[in-house]
C-alpha cells in the first residue's frame, strides 16, 4: 500500500524543489548547444541579434504561460488563451483608433482579458462546468466577440509607443532587449514570489493538490478559482496587447492555437495537469525552449512541418522524462 509513501522522516530534500527548474534548464541548454552545432555557425545562432529575435518572439507565449501556470497549478486548464489574445488586441486597436490615450487603451485590453477570466471562473464555479469545457466554450465566444468588435477585419491603429513594446531592436540601445521582454521578466519574477510567498499563492497549490482538503479547511474554493482565472485572464490580455504591438494592428484571427503553446510551455517547465505542481521559472524556460527550437529549425532551413513534429515530440519526451524522474525520486525515498 505504502509503496509510494516513504517512511517517516524521509521527506524530500529541500534541494529537490530546484530540480523542478533545473531539469527544464538542462533541456534549454541542450537545445542551444544542439543548434549551435547543427547550424555550424554558433556565432550566428548565439549572436545578440538572434537572441533578441528569439526573446521578442517568446514574449506573447511567455506572458500567457505566467497566467496558465497559476491555472494549471490549481488543477485547472484554460483553452481560451488564443481567442483572448485576439480579443485584447482588437480592443486595444479599436480604442486607439477612437482616440483613446495609449495607456488607457492598453489597460482596456488587459481588463478585457480579466473580464473573460471572471466569466470563465463563474462558469466553472457557479455553473459547475469543468474548466476544459467552460474555457473551450469561451474559446469560441471570445473569438466571436473579437471579430464583432473588429467588424470582421483587421483594425489598423495609429502609431504610438505601444508599437515599441515587443520590437526586436529597442529604440534605446541601452535597453538591450525590447521593453516587453523586461516587463515579462519582471512579471515572471513577481508571480514566482506571489506563488511562493503569499497566502493566495499557497492556496493555489493547496486547491490543486487536494481541493476537498482546501474546502474542508474553510477555504472558499469557488472564490479562489474565480480569482485564479481572472488573474490569468489579465496576463492573457497583456499578451494580446503585446500581440497588437508586434503586428501594429488588431487582428481578430490572430493567435489561433496559441493556448496549446502556452500549455506546452507550462508542462515542459514541470507543470502537472493534475494540479499541485508547476513553476513560473519553469514555464518561462519551457516557452524559451519552444522559441529556440522554432528559430533553430528556421536557421537550418527545415520546413515548418519538421518544427511541428519536433516540438510535438519534445512535449511528450519532456513530460515522460519528468514522470520518470518523479518515479525515481519516489523510489529513492521509499
Amino acid at each position: 500500500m505504502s509503496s509510494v509513501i516513504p517512511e517517516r522522516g524521509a521527506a524530500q530534500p529541500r534541494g529537490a524543489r530546484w530540480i523542478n527548474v533545473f531539469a527544464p534548464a538542462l533541456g534549454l541548454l541542450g537545445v542551444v548547444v544542439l543548434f549551435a552545432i547543427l547550424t555550424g555557425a554558433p556565432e550566428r545562432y548565439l549572436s545578440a541579434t538572434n537572441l533578441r529575435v528569439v526573446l521578442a518572439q517568446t514574449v506573447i507565449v511567455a506572458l500567457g504561460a505566467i497566467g496558465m501556470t497559476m491555472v494549471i497549478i490549481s488543477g485547472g486548464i484554460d483553452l481560451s488563451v488564443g481567442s483572448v489574445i485576439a480579443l485584447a488586441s482588437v480592443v486595444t486597436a479599436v480604442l486607439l483608433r477612437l482616440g483613446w490615450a495609449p495607456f488607457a487603451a492598453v489597460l482596456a485590453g488587459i481588463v478585457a482579458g480579466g473580464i473573460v477570466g471572471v466569466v470563465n471562473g463563474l462558469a466553472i464555479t457557479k455553473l459547475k462546468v469543468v474548466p476544459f469545457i467552460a474555457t473551450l466554450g469561451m474559446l469560441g465566444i471570445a473569438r466571436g466577440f473579437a471579430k464583432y468588435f473588429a467588424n470582421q477585419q483587421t483594425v489598423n491603429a495609429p502609431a504610438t509607443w505601444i508599437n515599441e513594446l515587443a520590437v526586436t531592436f529597442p529604440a534605446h540601445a541601452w535597453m538591450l532587449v525590447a521593453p516587453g521582454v523586461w516587463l515579462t521578466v519582471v512579471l515572471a519574477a513577481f508571480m514566482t514570489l506571489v506563488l511562493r510567498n503569499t497566502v493566495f499563492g499557497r492556496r493555489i497549490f493547496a486547491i490543486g493538490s487536494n481541493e476537498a482538503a482546501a474546502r474542508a479547511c474553510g477555504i472558499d474554493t469557488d472564490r479562489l478559482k474565480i480569482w485564479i482565472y481572472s488573474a490569468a485572464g489579465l496576463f492573457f490580455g497583456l499578451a494580446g496587447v503585446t500581440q497588437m504591438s508586434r503586428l501594429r494592428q488588431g487582428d481578430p484571427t490572430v493567435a489561433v492555437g496559441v493556448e496549446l503553446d502556452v500549455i506546452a510551455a507550462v508542462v515542459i517547465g514541470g507543470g502537472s495537469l493534475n494540479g499541485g505542481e508547476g513553476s513560473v521559472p519553469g514555464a518561462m524556460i519551457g516557452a524559451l525552449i519552444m522559441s529556440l527550437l522554432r528559430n533553430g529549425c528556421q536557421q537550418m532551413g527545415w520546413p515548418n512541418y519538421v518544427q511541428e513534429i519536433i516540438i510535438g515530440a519534445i512535449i511528450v519526451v519532456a513530460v515522460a522524462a519528468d514522470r520518470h524522474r518523479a518515479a525515481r525520486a519516489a523510489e529513492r525515498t521509499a
Partner: protein
Amino acid sequence: MPLLHVQSVTKRFGATMALDGVDFQVDAGGVHALIGENGAGKSTLLNILSGLIRQDSGSILLHGSSYAPRNPAEARRAGIAHIHQELAIAPHLSVAENILLGAEPSAFGRLRRGVMHARAEALLREFGREEIDPGARTGALSLADQQVVEICRALAFDARIILMDEPTSSLQRADVERLFGVIRQVRDRGIAVVYISHFLEEVREIAARYTVLRDGRSIGSGALEEAGDERLISMMVGRPIETAAAREPSAPGEVALEVHQLAAPPRLRSATFTVRRGEILGIAGLIGSGRSELIRALYGLIPSTGGIALHGRGLGYLSEDRKGEGLALQLSIADNVTMSRFSSCARGGWIDRHLQARQAAAVMERVRVKAPGPRTIVQRLSGGNQQKVAFGRLLHQDADVLLLDEPARGIDIGSKSDIYREIAELAAQGKAIVIVSSYLPELFAICDRIAVMRRGVLSAARPVREWTPDSIMQTAIGGAA
C-alpha cells in the same frame, strides 16, 4: 448540559433513509465511540456535524444553542473538526502549510513563513513529534504522521470537538498506540472526541462512552464498561452473529502455486512458499513489511525476480485499496463484477446486458450485496457493500488461485462474516487462497497455514495451530534485520 446534543435527526438520500431518528450526546473532555455496521449512518451523522450536508429534520444543540452549519468553514468556526477516513491533506504542500491551511498567518497577503513554521513546530512538539519537519513535503510522510498533521490542524484552529472517522484503519499497532496517546492528550485538554471504529477492543481502549447506530437509528448508548462485547455486537447487527470460529481444516489437493525466492526490492526481499488447492494461506506482518508487495509481485503489478509456477487457470487479485484500484466507482455493480471476464457475457465484442445483469445478480446474492439492483452505481453503496462487489468480481472471474489483500478491512462485522464465509466456501471448492491481513483474529479464524513477513523476508508457512498471536508478533517484529 452536554457539549453537543443531537436530537431526532433524519436524513434521506433518494429512496434510502440514511438517518432515521438519531439521538446522540457528547460531553466535553470525553471520547465518545460511535459504533455500528457500515451503512448504519455513522458517516452521514459526522458529515452533518461538519457541515458537508444538512439534515432533513431534527435539531442539533452546541453549547445549548442551535447549531446548523451550512458549510465546513462554519463548522470550523463553531469549533468542530472532522478528520476523515481518507486524510484531507494537500500532499504537495509542506507540513506547516497543511497544519495552518485556511488560517495561514499573513501580513498584507504575504505569508509569514517564520510564524507559520514556529506554530506548526510548537503543535508538533506538544505531541512529542518534533522529529516531523514542518518544512517537509506532507506527501512524503507516512500515513500515521499525516494523521498527526491533521490533528494538529484541528488544534490550530482551536477545535472543541474532533470527529474521527476510522482513524486507525491504515495504521499499524505502534502507530495506533501513538494515535491513542495523542487522543488522550486532546481529551485531557477538555476537547470532545467522537470516534468511529469497527474494532471493539480498540474502542474499549480509548473511549469511555458509546452510541450504537443501526439502520440510521440510535439503538443504545451508555458507558462502555457496563456493556459487554456480545451486547454491543447484538445491538450493532440486531441479530445473533457467529463470532469467528476456527475453520475446519480442509484436505488440501495438488499444488496450485509455487513461489521460489521471489524478490521485489526494496520492500520484498525473499519469499518462498507453496499453496495447494483447497488451502488458505495467511500472510501476517506489519504494514510496510513487504506483504502487499508480495501480492503485487505475484500478480505482476510490480517487477520482481525469482520463480513463480502457477498450476491452474488464472490468478485473481483483490486490492487492499478498494477505491483506488479495487473498483470503478462510477460504473454499475454489473460492470464491476463482470469486468475481469466480460467474455462470459459478451458475443463478438458486444455485451449482452441482460446476461450481464443476471450474472451480476447471482454474484450479488451469493455475497449478499445490499443494493437496489445490478445497475446501481458502486459509488452509492456503503463501504462494506463496495467491498463485497470487489470480492464478487473474483467469484465471477473464477480463477483458481486468489490473492486477497486485506479482504475485510474497514468494513462492518456483518459484511466481514459474509466475506469470511465466502472465502471458506471458495477453498472448499478447491481454490487456492493467499490472504494478507493485519487483523490476527481473522487469520486465525480462516487460514490453514500462516507465514509471517518481516522486513521483506517471509517465514516458513506453518499450520495455524502451531502459531499463537504472541508468536506471530514475535516473528513479525523480533530480532535484527
